[in-house]
């Protein structure tokens, strides 16, 4: 049996979401079809609202609502001289929870991974270089994930940023290796920020 084109379109759209395979897409589609109309409408409205109101910050590429720049970039109390570089906006949430960091951020929107077709052009690296050139930035803290791709991204950033005369540091190890920043607990992440170390272009980020 095959589904009607309306149902198939729903399944296909769900199946294109990250982390959702064909089986899960079917399950979610049937859940929505069986649910009361309000539930499906609430979801569709939430998606449309988010798409309309939320955009990426023109400066740091964090999520931003109600303006070109995100709330952190607009906050005059945040230090301009320190920028913390992360892979995704979720990582900002994790770091903010530690309350250890009062500077600003830069979101790369991914990590360096040739297998996934992600190179320098796919990441917001050139934009970071522009910021380092134009803003009053003294230190760039690289807080990419403590896995292979995160470390490679860190090495790559050092290569680009060191010649610009900015101090580049890496959050200290102590985070679970191979892990995800997003899931690190506040205490560990706070200590990792505090114990950050200067990176040299010559040495790989993982020693």
């Amino acid at each position, binding site marked *: 049996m095959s589904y009607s084109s309306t149902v198939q379109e729903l399944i296909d759209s769900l199946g294109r979401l990250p982390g959702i*395979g064909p089986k899960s897409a079917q399950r979610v589609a049937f859940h929505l079809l069986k649910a009361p109309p309000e539930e499906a409408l609430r979801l569709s409205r939430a998606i449309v609202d988010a798409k309309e109101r939320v955009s990426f910050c023109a400066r740091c590429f964090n999520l931003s609502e109600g303006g070109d720049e995100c709330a952190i970039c607009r906050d005059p109390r945040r230090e301009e001289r320190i920028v913390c570089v992360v892979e995704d906006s979720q990582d900002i949430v994790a770091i903010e929870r530690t309350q250890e960091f009062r500077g600003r951020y830069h979101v790369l929107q991914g990590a360096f991974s*040739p297998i996934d077709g992600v190179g320098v052009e796919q990441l917001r690296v050139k934009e970071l270089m522009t910021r380092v050139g134009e803003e009053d930035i003294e230190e760039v803290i690289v807080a990419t994930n403590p896995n292979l791709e995160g470390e490679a991204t860190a*090495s790559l950033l050092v290569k680009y940023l060191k010649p610009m005369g900015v101090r580049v540091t890496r959050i200290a190890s102590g985070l679970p*290796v191979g892990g995800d920043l997003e899931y690190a607990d506040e205490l560990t992440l706070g200590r990792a920020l505090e114990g950050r170390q200067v990176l040299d272009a010559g040495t790989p980020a993982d020693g």
Partner: protein
Amino acid sequence: MLIRTLELQNFRSYEEASVSLSDGLTAIVGENGQGKTNLLEAISWIAGMGSFRGVPDDALIRLGADAAILRATVESPDGREQLIEAELPRIGRNRIQVNRQRLSRARDLVGVVQVTVFSPDDLELVKDGPALRRRWIDEAVVSRHPKHDALRSDLERILKQRNALLRSAHGRLDGDAAFTLDVWDSKLAAAGNAMRAAREDLLAEMAPRLAAAYDAVARESAEVETIYEASWHGDLAEALAGSRQLDVRRGVSTVGPHRDEIVLRIGGAPARTHASQGEQRSLALSLRLAADAVVRQAGVAEPVLLLDDVFSELDPGRAEALLDALPGGQRLLTTAAWLPPAATPDQVLKITAGTIVAASG
């Protein structure tokens, strides 16, 4: 480490099976194609999270079923019992639980149970190309130093990343691409140098045990050597710089531990091309025995021995000799034909059509 019980659901030919294992020698008997090897494969999966037959996990799920489930109770030397559970679904990720606690990183299961597998295919270790010998030594390195599991998987991933980058360069390396290649080169150099050193150290540590194992199994004394032939000299970082043009042109990494060879020699001659089939078989068994002995000697683990159909390939004399050369502890062997007369199993499991029909001993 002892495996006390094993329970399978929808694993290979087993719909449901459950068995208690003796802590000595267990003989698994039955006609061909009944599920003897499948049983050993289940145990080896728990140890290494993969089939020793080198097939993807999907092949392990019983035809028509959505997921296979493996459950084992194991006992560590200090008497502590652990319940290991693995669910291998056809779709989605494997779920691993130890004592009902889900492991956040599934790979942490590796090393909880250690096994040494002997199979008739081991002959290819001696006769085939270098890839199998690299796999053998890397598995031995990880058994000897469980922390190197991360090194091995990093190395694999770095090579995939570097090769993907080389392919995407389409034979030409412009400024940015050269920069990014530098990054993977430094990762590959660090991991590659470390893996080569670990392999060479282990071969040196193994040498006396390999010699002793060969003498015992072959029942004659011959000089057995392993010679590590690296694909580069000195520091891998420099070798990678030197091969960069070539790598970019070909779109693959032409130097590194994934291109190294381990030459095996018996009496000064390369075993691959000069040794008799019998000598090759003895050497293959000795390679497994030597890796096992090193792990035991270092006190890392007492691997469970899994011997799949190895006696049928040996003449009675060599079979006896192998049986004598085996360390004690928990041993499971399968056979469709005969057992060496000297073998006195503590337990016999008879397998028919994916069910364990009789147990004795």
